């Protein structure tokens, strides 16, 4: 192994350190956390995890998060598909402006939208629902999905569409049976990024919910008072939030390079 490969290795070790520390903390008792500094749990305990799996306010929070993230991903990709197709195959009145306007929403600071969103979603009676968060996240995710999908679709020549029509396919049949399988990698990449941005976001998710749809990101911040007895619990909750992300990354590992290569993150 050359000296050069040392660099990525050191970097990865650096990346793993906080994760290791979090896992370490999650298995310690409160006593140990407050009273000593140790690199591994001397008093190993599963108490924190037990709390999370048995207390509905905790595991319910995870379910809430997964719910709105899944909702958001499916809806964003589903709506983005026809729009991306339109952008890739047609020119129409205002197309360039529409595209840029869509992209500009990716650049919007969530902080600007917090208060207006609270008012907006309350006024339509959607406050504290999964739909509210899913919809709010669509502000950023739909432009992203359209951008990524358009990139992949532009790589598929129009001749494919024309051949299908000549062969007698109707547009819906062509889209579902022929086109979508062709860009399946693109759909995977778009879904991955939608999942990612929705899963990690906290500001909107926390402020658009209160009890019924409270996500894990909000449930955790209530314990971030850093007083000793909450730290183990906090760490365990944190470790559990890493798992969906790790699973998703593992599944799309072959497409990571390709998705970034399109340069459309």
């Amino acid at each position, binding site marked *: 192994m050359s000296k050069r490969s040392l660099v990525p290795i050191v970097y990865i070790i650096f990346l793993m350190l906080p994760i290791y520390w979090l896992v370490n903390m999650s298995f310690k008792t409160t006593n140990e956390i407050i009273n000593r500094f140790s690199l591994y749990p001397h008093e190993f305990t599963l108490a924190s995890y037990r709390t999370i799996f048995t207390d509905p306010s905790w595991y319910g929070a995870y379910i809430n998060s997964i719910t709105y993230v899944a909702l958001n991903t499916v809806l964003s990709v589903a709506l983005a598909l026809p729009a991306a197709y339109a952008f890739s195959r047609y020119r129409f009145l205002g197309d360039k402006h529409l595209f840029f306007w869509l992209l500009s929403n990716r650049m919007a600071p969530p*902080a600007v939208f917090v208060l207006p969103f609270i008012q907006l979603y309350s006024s339509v009676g959607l406050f504290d629902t999964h739909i509210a968060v899913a919809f709010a996240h669509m502000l950023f995710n739909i432009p992203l999905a359209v951008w990524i999908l358009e990139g992949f679709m532009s790589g598929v020549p129009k001749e494919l569409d024309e051949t299908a029509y000549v062969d007698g396919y109707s547009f819906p049949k062509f889209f579902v049976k022929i086109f979508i399988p062709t860009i399946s990698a693109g759909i995977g990449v778009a879904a991955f990024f939608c999942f990612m941005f929705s899963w990690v976001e906290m500001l909107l998710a926390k402020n658009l919910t209160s009890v019924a749809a409270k996500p894990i*990101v909000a449930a955790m911040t209530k314990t971030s008072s850093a007083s000793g007895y909450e730290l183990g619990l906090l760490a365990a909750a944190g470790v559990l939030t890493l798992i969906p992300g790790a699973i998703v990354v593992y599944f799309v590992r072959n497409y990571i390079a390709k998705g970034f290569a399109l340069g459309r993150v």
Partner: protein
Amino acid sequence: MNKTFNNKAWWMVLPVFLVVAFNALVPLMTVVNYSVQETFGNNEFFWSGTIWFQQLLDNDQIRASLGRQIAFTAVVLAIQVPLGLAIALCMPRKGPWVSVCLVLMALPLLVPWNVVGSMWNIMALPDIGLLGKTINALGIHYNYTRDPVAAWFTVILMDVWHWTSLVVLLCYAGLVSIPDAYYQAAKIDGARPWAVFRYIQLPKLKHVLTIAILLRFMDSFMIYTEVIVLTGGGPGSATKFLSIDLVQKALGGFDLGPAAAFSIVYFLIILLTSWLFYTLMMRNEAN
């Protein structure tokens, strides 16, 4: 691709347009509305013109937040972009280790932002955190909840941990797309590794580097959750960046007018800078 002109394509775009418009236009109109009105309570509003915007320009607090934000973004860009590029250059182009590396490097990007904050919160605790304890053991007095310098150091280190991988992945994808023939020709021409970097790799990475800088600029300028969980904006206001300031004002008090004016200016700053980058990027591509 030869695109045909067809206005019926609007039907395909309509759902997307409606959802995004609902989420974007309605709130923005509300914000604009508030920014030019004043209220004395009881839901009664009066036209107040540009008074909030003028106040904004004079407001020391907001100026300070802006200054901190610019400093933060500058430092973070200066570290993450060269570092990410350097790491990408050191990664193998092919082989079994590549996907392992990529997966591990992508993990920080998928951690919920509040967990990122919590992670580093715990790491940096002076007595019981890995980082905190180590630094103090080296003899440096370190407490990020009391000392602004320590707080800045921790916040920046956290952001580097969180986002450098994005730059690495982008640059890596760009590097891998350079055809072998360029490296072969350079070998035949007798070029040294530095010349290969300067004349082949760097020019071909212009596109991805622009995207990396654009994304990192935008996202670091909007940073909120990680910092709020780590330091709460403190000690004092040492790490109060623009988003934190705005949310405090918008959700904290009844000053809807000033908060709204703040929002608009904030959004405009990002929009303008991003538009500049975007045009630069498009012009590069056209070349």
